[in-house]
Structures are given as structure tokens and as C-alpha cells.
């Protein structure tokens, strides 16, 4: 037990250093290539507006992956909850003209989004835990199901015309700092607290490192699986609100590249794809690193597809680095 803890602490530290190193590298490259545009307040702020929606999504993926599973349905949950929230807001404020109902509408929309996100996640978790079906398959079905629900409800076209108060959630600032930064920091704090300081968080780590052993040691694996996916679904709901507010439109096909992006962030952040290992800070740092890179591509007017290409290469590189570090740690241990 103790040795596992020690080992768990030693490995991600080198990983964290690597990420910070890569961030510094990205910054240096940009300082050379685009010194005028990159280090401006406006650019920093535009970066902050962009990353929380998929940063929070990445935490959902992280939680499931630490538990030994994966959650591919997050984008589906995000769009489904986003569509529901958008419908509530537009219906209750009569397409943004009746502002007296704006605040209760937004509160209701947020509650519904989180609750529905939680339910979708819990449904995934139940099917995975009860029927013992691989998480990948169930959440793949989930993606199809929730995207289908969003598509069926909207019938195809996007829902637009939210009131300004709702748009402000992801586009507003207080003293020059975007609200979303506070939401993101809050999410980081909550996830970090749950993973580090609650029994549930530790059960997730146990379940991920050895499912059989954790069942024999008295952990209710079905309950933990359901709760893990519920947690991830709630995070999906949060980013559903954020993306709907950010784009001021909700439809079933928003953010379809986020699945790969969140996977990349999580793996880059040092979460082991087989489960059991991973730290919140690593994932948060990886999110910021990715945003730095995305932003750099944007400033250099590179094609979006070049980004996809680089992301794919980065994913493989991160996995290779992980495998190498694992091997080295093993060697050190045997010495």
C-alpha cells in the first residue's frame, strides 16, 4: 500500500515536469515567431474564454479513465444537456424578449442540465456495472443515444436566440476576468477535492487499479461505477451549459472533435489508459498546454486540420513517453 503511494507520487512528477517543459517550449517558440500577437492581454483573455468547456469535459473523461473505463458519450451528454438548457431558456424568456423571467429560467436550465447529465451518466454506469459490458461499448452507444435525442428534439436546426444574461455566462467578464475562469477553477477544486479527500475518490482509484481486488475488499463496485459515470455526466452537463452559452446556439453536432481532444488531454495529463493512475493537476496543466498550442495555430493562421494532425501525433507521443517512463520506473524499482 505504502509503496504504491510512493510510486504513484514519483511517476507523475516527472510527467508534470514534462508538461511544464512543453508549455515553456511552446511559449518560447511563440515568443520567437509571433512576439507581437501572442503575449497580449487580449490574447490571454481569448484563450481563457475557450478552454473551460473542454477542460471540464476532460475531467469527466479523467474520472472514468481512472476508474478503469472510458467515457466516449461526454460530447453527446454535452450537446443533449445544452439543447435542453437552450430550450428552457428560449421558451421561458420568449426568445429573449421577456427579460423578467431570465434569472429563474437560467437557474432552472442549469439545474436541468446538471440533473439530466447526471442521469445520462448514471444510466451508462448502470449498464456497464450491472451487465458487465465494456465501458467503451456502452458509452459509444451512449454517444449515439444522447446525440440522437438531441437531434430528435431539435429536428436538426440549431436553437438560437438566448437572452443576454445566458450568453454572459461564458462571454461575460468581471473586472476584465472572464466568469468562465472562476467556473473552471471551481470545477478543478471540486474534482480535486472529490478525488483526493473523499472515500468515493479513493474507491475510484482502487477500482481502476484492480477491479477484482476492490470487489473482494468490500467495495460496492456497481455503486462506484454508477457514481463515477454520474459524476462525469454532471461535468458533461456543466460544459453543455458553457458551450451553449459560448456559441449562443445549441445543436446535436457541436464540438464533435472534443472526444479526441479530451482523450488527448487526459492521456497527456498522465492518466493511465488502463486506470488507477492520474492526477487532477496534470490534466489541468495538459488542458492549458493544449490551449496554448491551439491558440498558437490560430495566430499563425494554420488550418484547423493541421491541428487535428498535430493533436494525433501528440497523443501518440504522450503515450510513448508514458510507456518509457513506466519502464524506467520499473527498472529503478528493481535496482
Amino acid at each position, binding site marked *: 500500500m505504502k509503496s504504491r503511494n510512493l510510486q504513484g507520487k514519483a511517476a507523475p512528477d516527472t510527467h508534470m515536469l514534462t508538461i511544464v517543459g512543453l508549455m515553456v517550449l511552446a511559449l518560447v517558440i511563440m515568443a520567437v515567431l509571433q512576439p507581437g500577437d501572442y503575449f497580449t492581454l487580449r490574447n490571454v483573455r481569448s484563450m481563457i474564454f475557450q478552454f473551460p468547456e473542454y477542460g471540464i469535459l476532460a475531467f469527466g473523461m479523467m474520472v472514468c479513465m481512472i476508474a478503469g473505463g472510458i467515457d466516449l458519450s461526454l460530447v453527446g451528454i454535452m450537446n443533449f444537456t445544452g439543447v435542453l438548457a437552450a430550450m428552457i431558456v428560449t421558451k421561458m424568456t420568449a426568445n429573449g424578449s421577456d427579460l423578467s423571467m431570465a434569472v429563474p429560467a437560467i437557474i432552472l436550465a442549469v439545474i436541468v442540465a446538471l440533473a439530466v447529465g447526471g442521469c445520462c451518466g448514471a444510466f451508462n454506469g448502470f449498464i456497464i456495472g450491472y451487465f458487465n459490458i465494456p465501458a467503451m*461499448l456502452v458509452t459509444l452507444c451512449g454517444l*449515439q*443515444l444522447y446525440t440522437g435525442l438531441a437531434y430528435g428534439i431539435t429536428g436538426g436546426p440549431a436553437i438560437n436566440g438566448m437572452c443576454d444574461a445566458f450568453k454572459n455566462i461564458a462571454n461575460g467578464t468581471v473586472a476584465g476576468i472572464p466568469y468562465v475562469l472562476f467556473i473552471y477553477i471551481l470545477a478543478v477544486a471540486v474534482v480535486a477535492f472529490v478525488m483526493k479527500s473523499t472515500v468515493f475518490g479513493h474507491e475510484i482509484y482502487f477500482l481502476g487499479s484492480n477491479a477484482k481486488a476492490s470487489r473482494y475488499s468490500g467495495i460496492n463496485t456497481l455503486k462506484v461505477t454508477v457514481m463515477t459515470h454520474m459524476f462525469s455526466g454532471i461535468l458533461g452537463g456543466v460544459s453543455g451549459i458553457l458551450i451553449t452559452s459560448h456559441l449562443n446556439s445549441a445543436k446535436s453536432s457541436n464540438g464533435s472533435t472534443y472526444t479526441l481532444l479530451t482523450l488527448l488531454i487526459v492521456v497527456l495529463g498522465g492518466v493511465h489508459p488502463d486506470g488507477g493512475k492520474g492526477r487532477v493537476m496534470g490534466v489541468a496543466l495538459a488542458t492549458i498546454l493544449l490551449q496554448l498550442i491551439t491558440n498558437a495555430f490560430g495566430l499563425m493562421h494554420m488550418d484547423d486540420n493541421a491541428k487535428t494532425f498535430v493533436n494525433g501525433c501528440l497523443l501518440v507521443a504522450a503515450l510513448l513517453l508514458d510507456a518509457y517512463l513506466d519502464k524506467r520506473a520499473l527498472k529503478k524499482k528493481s535496482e
Partner: protein
Amino acid sequence: MKRNNDWKLTLTSTPMILIYVMAVFCIIAAIRQPAFLSPATLVNLCRAGIFTMCFAICEMVVIISGGIDVSFPAIGCVAMYVPMYMYNNGMGVDNVFFFFGVAMLAGLIFGVLNGFLVSYLKLPPLIATLATSSVASGGLIMLLGTREFTTLPPSLEALYSINLLTFVDPNTGFNYPLTILILVPIILCLVMAYVMRYTMLGRGLYAIGGDSNAARIAGFNVRKLQFIAYIFCGVMASATAMIYTTLMHSSTTTALMGEEMIIIAACVVGGCRLTGGHGGVGGTVLGVLLITLVENNLNMLGIPTSWQTFAVGLVLLLGAVLSSVQAKRISKMGKI
């Protein structure tokens, strides 16, 4: 007693349940829309099923070997785009073999990449193939741009116009031609059914999917077999993509993207387990038939097209639950 048990087992096995579901679907569709019963539906079904069938066989081989490949749509897009791009830019000859050759070469390259990532670097197959997928589709658009080729070169046009038979609807006078390319999935199924069941290669794929460690100790070359599975998937998916271009008269950089869900669905519904080692050509064929039937004829049941994604997801989920319940039942029987 034992005989009786066998009989019951056959009637409630996964393939039989698929057949029941399809029968119920067809009966309901026929009651709601008598036009469903025309041979035109069958011809359309065959046409629509060609790509799904070929892709599903590729995916099945990988799933049986214990992996998963979500990169074949991206590989397919590369394979259908590159030869057409070369032809339209004056590089290349107007020959069916040239088009298919270049396509399969592209598939080979990415298949080798997948195989390398999975078998040598031991990366999780899902993540490795996702990475390949983004490298392939991102790289393709970055290097060659997004164009759409809608006119076929004469040789492919000639291939397109060979039909096995043509059904003419007596009421409307519409032609429903059945292309010769329908033979590709049929031959592929027959060959793969033989390979998977009766050759060392096929048995090896089942073995490494069931328990790669045990297979290694039993003397199978796990790496080589994994390599073969991914290369087969890449090459065959590329050929299928070329067939797609021929039949649809279209070649774009994103034509096949998103197809992977349906294909994996078809395999799983047909009894392949994602944990590997289970499944077969027969089940996969039934799975493909069911998915194609549902996808193409949902409107006959009065379900609006906007709910189709949801309905396909539901079918997929039920298939997964069904196969898990079956697996549990069989393992319980073994204990008694």
C-alpha cells in the same frame, strides 16, 4: 434431455434472436407500407449493405483479435481521395487496377502504422487508432485540401455500369439495378468464413483475442497476428472505400467519417464481443442485415428521420445487453 436442451439453446441463440427481430420488423413494415414487400426493397438493401458488410468484416477481424479499429473511416477517406486526386492532377493512368492499387497501398501504410502502435508499442487499441484516425484525416486535408470529385474516370464508370440484374418496377417503371460489386462482400464473407474457421491464421486470431498470454505460450506469434489483423482491416477498408466512390460517384475527404459507430454496432449486435475471441462471419452478416434494414427502412415504421440516430443507438445498446446476457447464460450452463 440433452437433445432437448440443445434445441432450446439454438432457438434462443443470438443469431436466432436477430432473425426474430428482423422478421418482426419486416412484418410491421409490410403492414404499414405494402410497398415494402416489393423486390425493389431487397435490391436497395443489397446496394446499401455493400459497404457496411465489407467494413464490418474488417472490423470483425480486429475485434476478434482483441482490439478495436476506429480509424478505418479516416483510412478509407484517404484511400478514396488520393487516387482520385492523382488522376485529376494528371498523375496516374485510367485503370481500375491503378485506382484500387493506390487505395490499398494507402490502406496498407496506415494499417502498418496501426499494427505498429498496437503490437509493438502496446498502446491501447482504441486510443492508438483514434490517433491514427486524426493523423490520417488531418494530414490528408492539410496536404491535399478539400475538394470533391464527383465525376468518375471512364474505367470506374465502366465498372459501375456492369450490373448483375436489373429489376424494373412494374407499377412505376423505375429501374433497380444490382451492381456486380455486390459479389465483393459475398466473396469476402465466404473467404473469411473459411479462414476464420479452418486455418491456423483464423484460429490464432481467436486465440490471441481470448487470452493473448495463453496464445503466446501455446506458440502463436501474437505480434504478427495483431499486425495481420490491422493490416487486413486497413487494406480491405481502403478497397471498400474505392467501391464506395464507384457506386456513389463521389469522393470527399470526410465522406465516411462517423461510420465507425454503425459498423462496430453491426459487429456487436452480431455477437462479436469487444473483449475479443468471440464472434463469427455468420453473426456479423446478420448484424449488418439488421442494421441496414433499420437504417434504411425506419421511415416505413413511421419514425421520422431525425430520430434515426437515436433508434440506431437503441438497437446497438440492446444488442450489447443481449450478448452480455447470453454470455452469462452460457457460462452458467458450463458450471452445471
